[in-house]
Every structure is written in structure tokens, then in C-alpha cells.
């Protein structure tokens, strides 16, 4: 991948980011006034107006936008109303937790899906395939929220082998990872299975078999390499979704990640937190996309990233 390619991508990403942040600015302001949320309901109208003036919310939207855009250019995301600290500091504390959580869940899901999906494809039509099909469909459709609470009930309350929630050593990661694992695992099994069946029936595999190549080698070297591309593409999309945090899972487990932060930010009309989170997530997604392109090129030499 050449440097000019990276620059071109970065330029497009900057344009997209500007559009995204502009719409974020207007959309969060359409959702209502934070002043009522921050002052006690018994506060007088004068106190409310004073706070609007202090926050600059009394000015017309275009003026607010110009001010905000100027700050954005100098990467100033403002102070969080709720946390009473610079919004980007709060975001940068939460982001690594989410990225680690997402990366673990997705890596496990990818590896498990490749193995299980391949097994299904090799046994296509048989009872193993049908069982895997049911399992993966269920995994792809079960709600995170329900899975989380069931996990707490079973592993924390009944079996007492895992903590209910919280943040700390490896043991605290198991339930959130398991919840976030389910959906990508289910989706990827379906994709790997489909593309493996296709690859196994392709001419080059039949040729390899005719030449006497053994079953395992054909499946896991010749066919798999070709079948992986769609799975990598989907994993890239899933990774982009994960960058925004498994909001519900993070809320259930009290996991201090960006998803929980963003949900709280929206509910509390903490504009600075919402905007800083969106910005950080968008930048991460940009890098994930670059990474997926590079992976793509390394799996399939016919793809050239230029």
C-alpha cells in the first residue's frame, strides 16, 4: 500500500468526518435542551436562562455552529457537562476498554466461526451441518441484553464462578465477551459455511482433488483461503460496529467503555461527550477500514491496494 493511497483515503475520510460531525452537531441539538436536565425542576426560569447564556445555548444555531466548528479545528471538544472534565479525556479513558473488548470478542468469533463453518461446509446437508445451522442462526439473533442477564443468573448467581459485573482482571471480561461473541459468531458461521461450500465445489478444488491432494489440505489451504474473503469483509464491518461499543452489554455489566458513555451522553444531553465519542469512533473506523484493505490484499494477491 503506497503512501499516496493512504493520503487519498485520509482526505476522503476527513471530508466524511466533517459531514458526520456537522450532522452530529445539529442532531444532538434537535433532541432537546440540556438545561432542564441539569438544573433541579424547582429552579427558577431566571436560573435556567442564566445557564443557557453561560453555555452559549441562547445564541442562534448558526452562531453556535461556527463557534463549535472553530473549536473542532483545534481539536477542542469542550467540557462534559456531566463529568465536569474535558470530554476528550473522558472518551480516551473509555475507548481502549471498548476496543479491547471488541477485539477479543471478534477474534474469538472469527476463529470459532472459521472452524465451525468449515466443518459445516464439509458435512453440507448432513446432521452436523443442520445442527450448526440452528446453533448459528440462534446465536445471530439472540438479544445481547437477554443473554447478558441469563449469563449473570447462571454463572454468577447460580454457579458462582464469575462476577456479575464490573471491571478488572480477566475474569470480569468473560461474560461481556461471551455476550458480544454470539452475534458475530452466528453471522460469520453462516458466511464461512456458504463461501466454503462454493469454494469446495469450484473447479480448482476439483482439480486439486483429481491430482491427489488430501481432503484436509484441500479444505483448509486451497478452499479456505478463497472462502475467507467475504468473512474478512463482514468482520471489518462488524469491527466498525464494535468500535461504537456494545452499548447494551456495557450497560448491563457496568463496563466502562465507549458504548455506555455514548448512551449516557445521549440520555443526559451531554453534547460534548456525544460529539467527542462520535469523533473518536469515526477515526477508529477509518483505521479499521484501512486494516481490512491490507488484510484483503495479503489474503488474495489478486487484490491490489492502490
Amino acid at each position, binding site marked *: 500500500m503506497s503512501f499516496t493511497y493512504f493520503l487519498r483515503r485520509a482526505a476522503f475520510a476527513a471530508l466524511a468526518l466533517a459531514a458526520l460531525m456537522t450532522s452530529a452537531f445539529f442532531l444532538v441539538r434537535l*433532541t*432537546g*435542551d*440540556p438545561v*432542564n*436536565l441539569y*438544573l*433541579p*425542576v*424547582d*429552579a*427558577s*426560569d431566571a*436560573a435556567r436562562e*442564566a*445557564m443557557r447564556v*453561560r453555555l452559549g445555548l441562547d445564541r442562534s444555531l448558526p452562531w453556535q455552529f461556527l463557534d463549535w466548528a472553530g473549536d473542532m479545528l483545534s481539536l477542542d471538544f469542550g467540557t462534559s457537562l*456531566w*463529568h*465536569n*472534565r474535558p470530554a476528550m479525556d*473522558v472518551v480516551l479513558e473509555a475507548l481502549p476498554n471498548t476496543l479491547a473488548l471488541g477485539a477479543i470478542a471478534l477474534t474469538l468469533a472469527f476463529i*470459532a466461526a472459521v472452524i465451525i463453518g468449515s466443518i459445516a461446509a464439509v458435512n453440507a446437508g448432513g446432521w452436523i451441518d443442520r445442527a450448526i445451522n440452528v*446453533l448459528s442462526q*440462534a*446465536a445471530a439473533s*439472540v438479544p445481547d441484553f437477554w*443473554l447478558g*442477564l*441469563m*449469563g*449473570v*443468573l*447462571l*454463572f*454468577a*448467581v447460580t*454457579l*458462582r*464462578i*464469575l*462476577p*456479575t*459485573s*464490573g*471491571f478488572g482482571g*480477566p*475474569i470480569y471480561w*468473560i461474560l461481556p465477551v*461471551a455476550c458480544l*461473541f*454470539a452475534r458475530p459468531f*452466528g453471522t460469520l458461521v453462516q458466511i464461512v459455511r456458504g463461501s466454503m461450500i462454493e469454494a469446495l465445489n469450484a473447479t480448482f478444488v476439483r482439480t486439486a482433488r483429481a491430482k491427489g491432494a488430501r481432503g484436509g489440505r484441500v479444505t483448509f489451504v486451497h478452499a479456505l483461503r478463497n472462502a475467507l474473503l467475504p468473512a474478512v469483509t463482514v468482520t471489518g464491518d462488524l469491527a466498525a460496529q464494535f468500535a461504537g461499543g456494545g452499548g447494551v452489554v456495557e*450497560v*448491563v455489566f*457496568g463496563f*466502562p467503555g465507549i458504548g*455506555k*458513555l455514548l448512551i449516557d451522553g445521549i*440520555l443526559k444531553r451531554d453534547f460534548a461527550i456525544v460529539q467527542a465519542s462520535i469523533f473518536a469512533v469515526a477515526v477508529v473506523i477509518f483505521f479499521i477500514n484501512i486494516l481490512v484493505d491490507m488484510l484483503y490484499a495479503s489474503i488474495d494477491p489478486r487484490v491490489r491496494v492502490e
Partner: protein
Amino acid sequence: MKKMKGIGALSMGLAFLLAPASAIRADAASDKLTVVVTDEPKSLDPCDTDLSGNSRILHNNITEALVNLSPADGSVVPSLATSWRQVDELTWEFKLRDDVTFHDGKAFDANAVVAALKRAQDPALACEVGLATLKGVKFNAEAVSPTTLLIKTDIVEPILPNQMSAVDIGSPATPNDGKSRSPAGTGPYKLAAWTPGQSVDLVAYDGYWGDKPAIKNATIIWRAESAVRAAMVATGEAQIAYEIAPQDGTTEQDHAFPNAETSLLRIDAEIPPLNDQRVREALNLAIDRDGLVGTIFHQDAQKAMQAVPPSVFGFNPDIPVWMYDPEKAKSLLAAAKADGVPVDKEIVIYGRIGIYPNSSESLEAIQAMLADAGFNARLEMLETSPWLKKLLKPWDKERQPSILQTQIDNTEGDAVFTLPNRFTTDGNQSTIADAKLDAMIANASKATGDEREKLFEDAFSYIAVDAINIVPLFHMVTIARVAENVTYTPDVQAGNEIKLKSISYR
């Protein structure tokens, strides 16, 4: 279910791998306690203790006020002040303790109170206490000596000591140009750490002037899910969990306590057909309160007739609770219709998601009850921000007739903290403009003693029986789950205060 097996097997496998290394179930040491609440605190500033999220951590743990209110009867009891008296109509004198130091080493004296009171009323800081409890009155404090303090007001303030119970006194070193995240008070605990997003740790303060607490280290954490909070006590990860939903709180460890909150529906009495008294009465007669309690609402919730619970000064015990009489409601509606009142017009019920456990379910049931009585009611559940727009003035002139789900808390113990804003012409949440009621509330607010109590009782009776602009529902309870080996009895103030120094292991 097959999916569950898959995930189950995987988690089980991982869990067994890690099980030997885990000590998560070890019971806490006898001087350590973990409490789980719903929400992370906001600023931890002593002047923001009107917010229950802040108050639960700060009040009487880290910071203290001049006086406290007795949870039994709302009477004012000493804390940092040992005695107080009204010198003249506009002046109160407080005698302060002389053996108190702040956690940062500064001495507690009258000057510290002067600074704290000034700070709480600083408009630039927009302190909760200044905006809510002290609102509308200028409090000027003056240090006569280190242990004698005068507080003067610009208008007569007969319940000034009650108000002082809400003003937590932070160290004079508390910054004046912003809210503090590292409070220093005089309380039995000092702040050890606040890990954003995770926990607040408190540690006992060796120099505390009062009895030393049994618990030396307390950790406060927050989880949004009621089921998770409840589970944490079951597994020993926490010893006390607040705000357990009725369906999760069915064990012997779950204690329901009155929380000074009253749930009700506010009727917008200005818009037809709700401007007709018979229609408002029919709304009240259409609600089967007995059917709601013990099902959607906790069985210990008390049927309400006014906006404050019995623990509040001015509560009127003699107002009869509305009967459930859908037939009478129908005939009242028919009579109104005969007089040309547009009773068929759609009425919106505005609800707030999560205002109390099962808030949506309660309104779904109420909507069905109203429909049975012949109302054309539509339910709209709102998130907090849009709900506040419906709660607070100004409202659209062209709005639809509506009733609004709300809950009013009064932990300050006097009716004046509930009535003016909600039931007078100028009140920012009031849907009633009645000169007679305005005068009743104004007179009661100025009075003292038995006369004050009587005048407030009359005001509550007038609102419930004559004006009828509310559908009172219940004096509410909160469920706290308490570990079996912990001694703790939540009282009416537990919604705003975790009395850590009263907690110990058995």
C-alpha cells in the same frame, strides 16, 4: 436454546480455566462494605447535594450540614450546630461545635459556614442546593465568633433550620470557580478515590468529632440494571443494593422503605375537556388503585390523596382516598357531555420511561382503566428530556389536553418545598391558576407552628377536593437489598442518604 448451550459450554470452559484464580465470592472483611447504586455521581460537590446521586455519597458521610432532620418525625436535630434560635423575624443564630476539623486540616468555624452558604448561592456555579432548597431567598451569613453564626434573610423564613439541613459545608479551600470533584468535609469518611466510570472509595476519617463508624472502607459502585444490582448482593460482591425492581425484590433480604416520593398524574386543567371539574373527578374515580398495588406497584406502597407523604409537615390525614367507581365516572362524563363538554376528545397521557420501576406498565394499566370508564386516552412514553419539556413551563398554547405522570419527592420535611412551584399561578410546573389557593399557600408559607400545619393541611385539602388538578396514586417505597450479615435499616431518607456510620456487620 441450542445457542445457550453453545455459549454456555464456551463460558463454562473459560470459567473452569480461570476458576482457581478467582476469589470473587470471598465475603468482605468486617470493616469493608460495597454499596451499589443506579448512577455515577455528577460532581461530588458539597453544593450539589440536592441531587440524590451526589447526596448519597456525600451527605453525612463526607460532608455534614449544621443540622439534620429526624427521619422519624422530620424535626430538626443538631449536627455541626449544637443549638439555634430565632433572634428576630429576619435573623437566626446558630451555635457551632468547636471540636471539628475538615479532612484537609482546616478548622471548622463560622467563617467556613459563611463561605459555604455564599458558594451555594453563587449563580455562576448553579448549585443544586441554591437553585432548589434556598431558591427565592437571600441568605446572608455573618460570623460573630468562631462558634457563633448569624444568618439573615431578606424575607421571613420560618423554617430556616430545615433549609440549613440541606446545605452541606465543604472546606473553605473548595474552589469558587467551578464544581469540586474532590470534596473535603467534616464527616466520618473522607474521599479516598473516584475512579471515573467505576467506583468511589471512602475511608474512615480518624479526626472525626462524633462516634467512629464500624465500617472503615466503603466502596460505592453503580449498575444500571436492577437484576444485576440484586445479583451482586446475592453473590457477595456488594452488601447493599438500592432501587431493586418489585419483580427482582422478592427475597427476605429485600426491604421496602418509604422514600418520601409520591407518584401522581398532573392534570392540565386549562384545556377542554379537562377544564371541567366533573371530567377531572371522573379521572380519579376511574383508577383502581387497589388493583395496581401489589401487582405493578409494590405491596407496601400507600394509596395517596395528596402530593406529600405523612412524614411531611402539613400533610392532611383527613382527606378521604378516592373510591374506585367507574360507573360514577361514566355518569359524570355523560353529564358533562350533555352540557357540551368535548369529553370524546383524545387525552394524551405523558409518561416518563423509568421514573420508577414499572412506570410504563403502570400507565398501560391506567390507560386501560380510563378507556373502561369511557375516556379516549392515548399513552405516550417519553425519555427524560422531552418529558421535562412537558413538565416545565412555558407550554404551547395550542397543546392537546393531557395528563402527565410525575413523582414528587419531599425529603426536606415541610410542605413549602412541594406546594409553591407546583400549585400556584407562578409555579413553573403548575397547571392551576387559582387566586384563592395562591393566598392559602402564601399564608401558610409565612406562618409557624400549629398555624402553619393547619394552613398547609387546608391547602392540600383544597387541591384534592375542590380544585382536583391531580390524580394522586401512591406514596412510594424503594426496595433495598441488604446482605444477611449486615445490619442496616433503610429509613425515609435512604433515597438521598446512605448512612454509612449506622451500618455494621452482625
